[in-house]
């Protein structure tokens, strides 16, 4: 077995009576873009801070190429980091901010100069070298922070919600920059965010945190298309959960009874269920169809409201059991169908729906 590049081993962090991180174990291959995703207080930032050396874990270990980082003080870990707030040095110019890590390493002037020029061109701020951070916009400051973090070619770059202080348009712009920079430098990135869309756009792999544990780890597609738990299904993308009673499961395909009494078979079962067990059926809003396809299940609903969202329409409908569900057909699909308020049937592929314990 080859040695993992960065390895987190049974990491645990306890604050008084509160356990922020419960024995998190994780291997990260070199060059991967891994995102810690989760709600606030889920332990994702605490895990990142343990890697950065800001907080000593209660137990467990962090290994970089087989060597423990824990006994190494922050300033000798050789890790790059971009923070939520920009944390540039306000008294130093953009160029001197980027040069800072090289200056404290006492690199020769010529090398510092060359590297600063390289980094500023990497983040496309060549013309801002002599400005002070206060004279830059938030997005520009965060790009300087990125350049500073990468200036000494750290093997790992940590990013702690770097885009949360920026507005939506800037966020998308910097996301594209981060993707490009990851591609061009090949640096291993650990990225913390609570924004699932950001995680899906950026990451090679996502570790979804919940209450100090990793709920599921995998590619964005894994988490979206094959959620391991209802928490994952609820956190990534939009989901409808319908109350259902489990009847039987034969070779991974379940048959259930919905609240309105209709039977649906061929559902993806996550785990094993008893006969008669209360369960929840998860269907993505965009998985609903307005016209029947072979093997589709159907649901009788009353359409309550329709809104136009550009590429998609959003339909709010109520099942005959009185539960509201969210349906998002593409606009072109909806255009060919009568979606005026009233009763109608909607359809879904049971293979793309998931059953979770209630």
């Amino acid at each position, binding site marked *: 077995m080859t040695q993992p590049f960065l390895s987190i081993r049974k990491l645990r962090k306890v604050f008084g009576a509160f356990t922020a991180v419960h024995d998190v174990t994780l291997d990260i291959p070199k060059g991967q873009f891994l995102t810690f995703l989760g709600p606030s207080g889920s332990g994702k930032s605490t895990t990142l801070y343990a890697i*950065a*050396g*800001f907080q000593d874990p209660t137990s467990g270990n962090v290994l970089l190429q087989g060597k423990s980082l824990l006994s190494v*003080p*922050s*300033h*000798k*870990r*050789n*890790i*790059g*980091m971009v*923070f939520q*707030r920009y*944390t*540039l*040095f*306000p*008294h130093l110019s953009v160029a001197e901010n980027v040069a*800072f*890590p090289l*200056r*404290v*390493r006492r690199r020769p002037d010529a090398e510092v100069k060359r590297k600063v020029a390289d980094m500023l061109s990497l983040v496309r701020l060549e013309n801002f070298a002599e400005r002070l951070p206060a004279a830059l916009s938030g997005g520009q400051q965060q790009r300087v*922070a990125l350049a*500073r*973090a990468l200036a*000494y070619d750290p093997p790992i770059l940590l990013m702690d919600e770097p885009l949360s202080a920026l507005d939506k348009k800037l966020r998308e712009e910097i996301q594209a920059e981060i993707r490009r920079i990851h591609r061009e430098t090949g640096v291993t990135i650990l990225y913390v965010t609570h924004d699932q869309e950001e995680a899906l756009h950026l990451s090679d792999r996502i570790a979804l945190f919940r209450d100090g544990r990793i709920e599921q780890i995998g590619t964005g597609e894994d988490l979206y298309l094959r959620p391991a738990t209802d928490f994952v299904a609820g956190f990534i993308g939009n989901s409808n959960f319908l109350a259902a009673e489990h009847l039987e499961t034969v070779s991974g395909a379940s048959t259930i009874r919905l609240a309105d009494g209709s039977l649906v078979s061929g559902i993806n079962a996550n785990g094993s269920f008893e006969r008669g067990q209360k369960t929840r059926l998860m269907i993505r809003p965009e998985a609903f169809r307005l016209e029947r396809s072979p093997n589709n299940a159907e649901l009788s609903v009353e359409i309550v409201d329709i809104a136009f969202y550009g590429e998609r329409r959003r339909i709010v409908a109520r099942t005959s059991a009185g539960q509201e569900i969210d349906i998002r057909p593409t606009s072109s699909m909806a255009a060919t169908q009568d979606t005026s308020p009233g009763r109608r049937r909607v359809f879904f592929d049971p293979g793309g729906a998931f059953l979770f314990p209630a």
Partner: protein
Amino acid sequence: MSVEAQQGIAAPRVPAGLSGLLPALILIGLFFVVPVLALLLRSVTDPAPGLQNYAALLGDGTYARVFFNTFLVAFVVTIVTVLVAFPVAWMLAIMPPALASILFGIIILSMWTNLLTRTYAWMVLLQRTGVINRALIGAGIIDQPLPLINNLTGVTIGMVYIMLPFMILPLVGTLRAIDPMTLRAAALCGASPLAAFRRILLPLSLPGIAAGGLMVFVMSLGYFVTPALLGGTSNMMLAEMIAQMIQSLLNWGLGSAAAFILLVVTMALYALQLRLVGARRAVGGA
């Protein structure tokens, strides 16, 4: 202070007429400008017109020694005050606000305590048979009592104690404005704690050090009570000399000249600081 607030102050507010300002102008003129001019006038006219008072002060070795002592003490007091105040201010800046406000209260309370009381307390502590000397002898660290009083050591100790709040308060303001994450960022950039202090924290706290330092230095130059009680006769400071000239020698001209020199030096220092740090920071704004 925010940029908007700065502009709010800088923006010219044109008064409807100067008449509204008149009471304030009269007050300032009567109580601030006229006395200084009278001081200047007396220094060049008493006992006879001419610059003989200044010549006497600047040409005489005894007076020169007093000036030297005064500047030496003010300089040393300022340096020691900065060194003691910085860690205290940093602690106050980063500790939980509730705890910090209690410590602030204690510091302010000491400022409100009568100056003479505090200085006499230092006499009790510092004298030959005082608490400090007896404790050190009792512990077997020294055989003979240390000369802690009636000299510049005593003056320095007493004055640093009096001046500390004037240094701590502006410094805490400056340090609080520094984002602690900036120091974490510096650490991850590879800066050792010492390098982070030297390259980041110290430059960022300079405005506070300069504001507090100027105040302490200027106050020390003209200080009377503490040098009079804790200092010795052989190393008099300027304020004591002025008091002596006017009270004992009744030489108002010489006393005025000495006071005027002190004023000019103080103003020169303030001007220097304005140039170095900028007017905005000299008044304590961050």
